[in-house]
């Protein structure tokens, strides 16, 4: 479902929760914030978030990574983290997809759901059809 952005969201002042749509200018950085709960031994791994197109596989156009180290805990503790993805390499287009994953875990990578059609990347400011349409005596 498309979610209209507020002015603050358009200005990037507040985050948009999935599945809301974020519209950015090419070259902007998109901050992706994740949350999870963890319990177990002290653990170090990598957090990766990517913008791209989800097909049979997820074609990552732009991504960012961050190392995370968690202390040991017998109980579930909540964590948040973020990465900033540059959109400079993304050809302006609409309806890009987003996902995040944790890699370097003892087992398989852990993936978030795929968030479809949540990022629109606009090109540089551009005019077209600039012309005098008429002139008259007033």
């Amino acid at each position, binding site marked *: 479902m498309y979610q209209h952005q507020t002015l603050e*969201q358009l*200005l*990037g*002042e*507040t*985050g*948009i*929760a*999935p599945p809301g749509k*974020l519209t*950015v200018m090419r070259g*902007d*950085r*998109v*901050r*992706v*914030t*994740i*949350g*999870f*709960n*963890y*319990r*177990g*031994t*002290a*653990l170090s791994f990598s957090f990766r*978030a990517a913008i791209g197109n989800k097909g049979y596989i997820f074609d990552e156009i732009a991504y960012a990574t961050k190392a995370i180290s968690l*202390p*040991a*805990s*017998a109980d*579930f503790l*909540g964590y*948040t983290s973020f990465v*900033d993805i540059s959109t400079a390499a993304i050809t302006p287009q609409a309806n890009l997809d*987003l*996902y*995040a994953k*944790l890699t370097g*875990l*003892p*087992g398989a990578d*852990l*993936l*978030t*759901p795929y*968030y479809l059609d*949540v*990022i629109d990347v606009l090109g540089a400011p551009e005019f077209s059809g600039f012309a005098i349409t008429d002139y008259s005596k007033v």
Partner: protein
Amino acid sequence: MEKIIVGAGTYTDVVDIVAPSSAAAGETVSVTIKIKNIHSASVYVAAVGVYDSEVRFIDWLMAWISPGATKSFSGSFVMPNKNVTIHGYSYYQDIDGYWRYDDEMSKNVTLQALPSPEFSGFAVNDYSTI
């Protein structure tokens, strides 16, 4: 506060060591040693916390303690991959300026088995431009 001259004898009582009874390897173990002044005058006291006679995690924290009062001295250590015994020591500063051992208490902290690494609720919370 004026330094009180004390003679030989016991002037303090380590009345409690506040610490978890178990902790997981790698977990930060917070410890508070409570020392009571059992003398009739103020005493300048130092607290020392050590585990397994190996690691000093409360390192000569000093304070005046009024007669009958109890003061807490806190520190922490990272739980090793074994059971440990915490020792809390109190020292007092004698008339000659030397620190003398006065009292001791110990407490065991057993190694807690941890569950295998487990995640839940992993999701993107939000995204924004910066």
